[in-house]
């Protein structure tokens, strides 16, 4: 699926995947899609909670090559 920017959080532990996802979204425009890759299993729940609390839309959450991959649409 199309995305405008990618942030690879592989190897990072809580809370950095979320903290840096927030930073990555900062210079994006509303409606653009950020792809986040993570290896922290906690990021599955965290990314959902992040989206719910910030208003960004979590378009998808899955795994690819044993990594977690998320698509976030900026609010």
């Amino acid at each position: 699926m199309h995305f405008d920017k990618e942030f690879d959080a592989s190897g990072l532990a809580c809370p950095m995947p979320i903290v840096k996802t927030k930073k990555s979204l900062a210079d994006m425009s509303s409606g653009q899609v950020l792809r986040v890759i993570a290896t922290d299993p906690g990021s599955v729940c965290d990314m959902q909670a992040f989206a719910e609390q910030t208003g960004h839309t979590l378009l998808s959450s899955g795994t690819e090559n044993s990594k977690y991959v998320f698509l976030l649409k900026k609010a």
Partner: protein
Amino acid sequence: MAAKKMAIIATKGALDMAYPPLILASTAAALGWEVQVFFTFYGLQLLRKDLSGIAISPIGNPAMPMPVPMPVMVAALPGMEAMATSMMKAKMKKKGVASLEELRSVCQESDVKFIACQMTVDLFDFTKSDFIDGIEYGGAATFMKFAGESDVCLFI
């Protein structure tokens, strides 16, 4: 919708206890929360320019995993605290856990307000030059003002 607010009192200066306030503050800020952390007693260590003295002790810490079972008498030997600290820091680095310095910078970049407890700053003879820039100095009343409006208030 008004931003949620979190108020934290950070009272501990050991490595393991230094993490929770900084992790929660940086995360809440990333979620758009307004956050203030009031550092008092040993928590003031987290505001020092140099964080390299922050350590973890195996003494009186039966839950700390050790590579080999270690009697208290051995854990009390000179150098054991430094060893435990360097082992813990190495493990954290390997597992991708951010450093205290990094978490603290993230907090400051995302407008988390740090307040140093003036009473304990004076008690321990600290001076402002011991601490990082961009922090405020105040007392319990300063904290209570914000804590009274907060959605989450933690004592760590």
